[in-house]
């Protein structure tokens, strides 16, 4: 079946996503394997090489695909993500939006209807057109607070079992009611049924519904009916085989964290936190499908160093992209908050210290070496060498002579999320209590909401444009500070309530760029309104933007994008 070989034109933008975190997988009749991952929907060829990775750029309802469904003839694929459901049909090159919804966690094709499990309930739509939408809400405990997420469906004689983060429910076509039977934990990951048995995998273990029996204590995330029993994918205990009659057994498997299972014919796929594995035949060896992209889609920082792009992730470490290849850098704490290039050195602000990477060697500085705190939020290179680092308890200068805590000389011991060296050599410290300008021997100057310079005291980013200072904040958008003849500062507040991400401001190409939680924005000199660049990155929460050689790299919590010189986001 060649359905999923979409036409590929020379892209205006390149997406770089990680396909390691697998949500769902489904082998196809032609030997290919579909894998829904946090980095898009992957099609693996029979050789388990990725033939295509679809992201939001291709019309998917979010790059992080949580659920897939395939028609019996393989002609149609539905994909559910953060913002709804899209469909791809034979002959089409681009995904089409079928239904909008939040946090789609499960899909089930029921004749000509598509059941969509979402945030707070179940939607039923026409599987071809998306029309005739019916909504079935799950009750909430109270008016304010989280709505339950639907995680799975299973077809049983008594109706459709709906697994949710608040227990097990039954949909009989007209409404939702709590399913009979006790589960070990209210958070149901998966529900599956075969014959008279219905199993529910929860955070607390696996239960057989209807018999009130806990079958296993493992945290079961995926279930697959096999001959004589079930295959269970668990978080922490790999694959396990549950016989209909007989004890539970471990199945040799390369990964301990199995999040998805699927089968077609004699091909079985298993999704894990380390990618997709495929086995042909009941006793074939598990083979690892190649994982592409950075170590994680949650990119927290970028830095360009010539042809090399450094990529810091939220909790999967540091990587370098160079010459079309990704390389993970070891010796750096996996929680990267910020990056700065200083000559031949890369400085990495992490949750457990400030790391220097030079050639292949990494050195870590902690509080013991003089930093105000181990949790380093931000780092910026200094023109005279060394860096300025912002930590959870103030800022410090790190230079050849060692670490000098600025707190000891009067700088605030506040959580410092943004740091920068001004054109005149003064040091700018963005904290949760406003912006400070620090000069040795001079009085500390504070700019805040109360002083009329900012719209939010939590400063997340600082950038300079000539003598003006652009200040990004968590909840107050961007402000621009200029200084009058008598050094009195005035402010020209920027756009609305945008949440500017740490180190999310940049000035280039005659524009100020802001990486915000709602997307990428920019403002050109002379313009009054900020422009919103929809679709600049695989995810909406844009975390960084850098440029070099004409290309613009845009990072988000759902992967990276590179826009070539001829195109602009």
């Amino acid at each position, binding site marked *: 079946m060649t359905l999923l070989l979409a036409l590929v034109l020379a892209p205006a933008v390149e997406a770089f996503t990680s396909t390691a975190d697998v949500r769902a997988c489904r082998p196809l009749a032609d030997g290919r394997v579909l894998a829904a991952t946090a980095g898009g929907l992957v099609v693996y060829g029979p050789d388990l090489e990725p033939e295509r990775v679809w992201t939001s750029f291709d019309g998917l309802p979010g790059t992080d695909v949580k659920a897939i469904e395939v028609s019996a003839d393989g002609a149609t694929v539905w994909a559910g993500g953060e913002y709804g459901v899209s469909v791809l049909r034979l002959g089409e090159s681009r995904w089409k939006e079928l239904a909008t919804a939040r946090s789609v966690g499960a899909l089930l094709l029921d004749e000509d209807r598509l059941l969509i499990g979402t945030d707070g309930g179940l939607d039923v739509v026409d599987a071809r057109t998306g029309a005739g939408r019916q909504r079935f809400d799950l009750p909430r*405990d109270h008016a304010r607070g989280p709505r339950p997420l639907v995680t799975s469906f299973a077809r049983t004689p008594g109706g459709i079992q709906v697994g949710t983060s608040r227990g097990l429910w039954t949909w009989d076509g007209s409404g939702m009611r709590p399913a009979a039977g006790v589960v070990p934990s209210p958070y149901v990951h998966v529900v599956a049924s075969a014959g008279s048995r219905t199993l529910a995998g929860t955070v607390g273990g696996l239960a057989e519904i209807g018999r009130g029996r806990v079958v296993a204590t493992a945290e079961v995330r995926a279930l697959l009916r096999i001959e004589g029993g079930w295959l269970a994918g668990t978080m922490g205990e790999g694959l396990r085989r549950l016989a209909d009659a007989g004890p539970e057994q471990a199945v040799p498997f390369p990964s301990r964290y199995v999040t998805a299972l699927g089968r077609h014919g004699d091909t079985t796929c298993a999704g894990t936190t380390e990618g997709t594995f495929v086995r042909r035949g009941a006793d074939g060896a598990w083979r690892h499908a190649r994982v592409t992209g950075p170590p994680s889609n949650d990119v927290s920082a970028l830095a360009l160093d010539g042809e090399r792009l450094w990529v810091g992730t939220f909790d999967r470490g540091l990587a370098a992209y160079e010459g079309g290849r990704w390389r993970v850098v070891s010796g750096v704490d996996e929680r990267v908050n910020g990056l700065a290039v200083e000559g031949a050195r890369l400085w990495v602000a992490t949750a457990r210290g400030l790391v220097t990477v030079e050639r292949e060697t990494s050195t870590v500085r902690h509080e013991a070496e003089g930093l105000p705190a181990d949790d380093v939020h931000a780092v910026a290179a200094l023109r005279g060498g060394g860096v300025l680092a912002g930590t959870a308890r103030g800022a410090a200068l790190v230079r050849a002579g060692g670490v000098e805590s600025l707190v000891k000389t009067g700088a605030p011991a506040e959580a410092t999320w943004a740091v920068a060296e001004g054109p005149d050599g003064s040091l700018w410290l963005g904290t949760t209590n406003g912006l400070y300008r620090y000069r040795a021997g001079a009085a500390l100057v504070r700019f805040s909401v109360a002083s009329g310079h900012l719209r939010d005291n939590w400063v997340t980013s600082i950038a300079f444009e000539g003598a003006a200072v652009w200040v990004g904040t968590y909840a107050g958008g961007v402000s621009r500070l200029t200084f009058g003849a008598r050094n009195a500062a005035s402010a020209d507040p920027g756009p609305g309530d945008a949440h500017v991400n740490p180190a999310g401001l940049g000035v280039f190409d005659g524009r100020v760029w802001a990486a915000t939680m709602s997307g990428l924005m920019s403002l050109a000199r002379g313009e009054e309104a900020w422009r919103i660049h929809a679709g600049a990155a695989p995810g909406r929460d844009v975390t960084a933007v850098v440029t070099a050689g004409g290309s613009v790299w845009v990072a988000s919590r759902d992967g990276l994008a590179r826009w070539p010189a001829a195109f602009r986001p």
Partner: protein
Amino acid sequence: MKGMVVVLLALALQPVSPLAPEATSAGVGRLDADAADGSSHTLELRRLSVDATVRGDAAETRVEHVFWNPTEEVLQGTFRFPLPDEAVLVGLAMEVEGRMVDGELVEREKAQRVYEQIVDGMRDPALLEWDGGSVFKLRVFPIEPMAEKRVVIRYVSPLRRDPRKGWQYVYPVGASTDLGGFRLTLDGEVRWDATSFPARSEIALDVPRDRWPSPVQREETDEATYTAVRVRPDWTLVPPPPDAVRTRRHVLVLLDDSRSALESRPLALQALQVILDSLDGRDRFRVSAFDITVREQTDAFVPFTREAAAQAMDFARSLEPDGASDLSLALRHAGRVAAALSPADRTGLEVVYLGDGSPTWGETGRDALVALAAQELPGVVFHSIALGRGGDAGVLRALSGATGGRFEQPRRLQDVTRLAATLPHVRRLRVLRDARVVAPEGHGVLPDGARTLFEDDDWQVIVRSPKGAAPDTLVLEGRTALGPFRQVLETRTATEGGFLVPRYGAHAVAALEGALAERDDVVRASLQYGVMSRHTAFLVLESEEAFARFQIRRREAQETRVSGGDLESTGEEASLSPDRIQPGDPEVRIPAPADARAVTVTFPFGETKVARYEPALGAWTVRFLIDQDTPDGVYHVYVRITHASGRVELLRLAYTVDTEAPAVAVSWRWAAGRSRTYLIEARQIATEVPLSPVDGAAGESRVATILEDARRVDVRLPDGEVLSLGLTRPGLFRGYWRPRRPLQAPVTLTVVATDRALNSRTARVTLDPHPPAAASR
């Protein structure tokens, strides 16, 4: 055995004057303030809040004092706190500009230098120093007019073991006047809440039987393992004392007549009376008072008669305690007295010391004094009755232990009465001399030094071992009348220890001070274990920046970390401590064993993350992001721990997303005692928000009133300056502003209130330049 046979039953028959308050004051601090005119008075203690946590055989008690300055003046004062018996001071916090700031333990000279350096500044730091014995002194400034001042003391103390009731938590209330408000909470449960409480009393709360500590307790830290052992000799291996013919007793009473004995004088006189009443016509006695000289009622032993005893009491009452205390002089005097006796009379000689045991003149080292006693009084029993709060029990205990004498530390009339009941039986008690506990090499045992163990003694030692290497056994050695004694003590099985680190630290510091160790060694031990010594002090500065500026490292992080409430733990080993979400990148820390097979965290938005073990923290961690569109409410995270044994533990962690900004009402008035100065006050306005119940109470709506989550209030003044108001108490902020020129027209202020989640609200308020005068309370 030469013991002290004292018939103290007589005490019950004679009228005894009430014990002076000073002799029993403990557990309650006092703040004496000095006014500008030089007058001094004690500030009213408006409220006393006691919060205790029991663990093992000890408790940590947090005592919050709220004093009231009724004057219109800014005062300065001295706060004194007498620690209860055997308590170890571990923390101090003081209110600085409306915020509670924790003190830090610092080398004393450095603390004094820092204090002096910034004492002339806008804010004074606070310095808590050891005032001798068990009294601690804290200089306090400023004490704002018509305002409250809060001081918090934390200490660790052992539980009391009552022979009939078992284990008890005891809190002594020794104040000069009745308390205006008193609240006591034990293990989170309010046990006493009163608007009035007697000045001198004692609260004793029974510890449930299922929480009674075992003889062996253990506590692990990152650096070491501590084991506390109640030493119980096998008395069947110790021969009973022979039924000796009663010989004539020669009792020499050494009465400490120094200045430090003044406080305990009434109790000392009662104890002297008890000692004299224990004698009969066959006995002789002699009373010698000493400070830096010795004064005697008689220059020889006199036969006991009622008249002689009365004359001795008159002599004692005539003394005026003053001067330093030279214990070495007293020992040498006792040695001369002993040398003047015939050998037969010397066998019946008993020396009884009455005083606080704090030598301040001559030889002061514990070990040196013990050596002197051995030299001057070979074979003579030295009994000690330690009195007063300023006492140093360590020296006296060492002296008595080395000579086979009895050590007592009566605090109340009941204690003296009990002493009276036991002393007649002392001669019939089995005794183990030179008792000491020996541990394998590499392990430290404190208190060290030999002691005399009587059959009814309750003795505990604490062993410090390398981490994870607690000894399975210890050895108790000593001497009996039959010769050497040796007993193996099993220590493999232990229950959770009660605050063993500071208790071991207190012993370590006492041992170093007793041996007159180098000051640096004492300081090092004091800082290592977080307990005060003569060479360290608690220092409170105005802000964390100030601590950093003076390079004073904080032992405990002042910034809270994410955690949550453990609500459904099915096990007892792993749990999450309660806390709130900090903005930024919240981090979940799970204290599960390093060898757990897996620790996973499932978030309410559908993500499951695998936690990683961090050896430096001894915990598993995972961090996550809260989406900007997340509605306000309480959310739950599931933590699943699969232990190495296969056992599964499921925990639930709650965190709150709060985007509701605080609202404050702002007013001002003239500041009392400050010329042309406004006192600006911002009071948080209560807001109501719907509450998310923890567990499915579907259909039930609840509302919470948010009163006190504001953390900062900034005010922009007309001159452009920004004033940060200080937190006086939850929900109330204050600050002072003195305009350069008197105001004539109404003034508009911009006020920004920020809460713990960094939500902020900006408002503008216009105020009358001529507000009312300061209101009286």
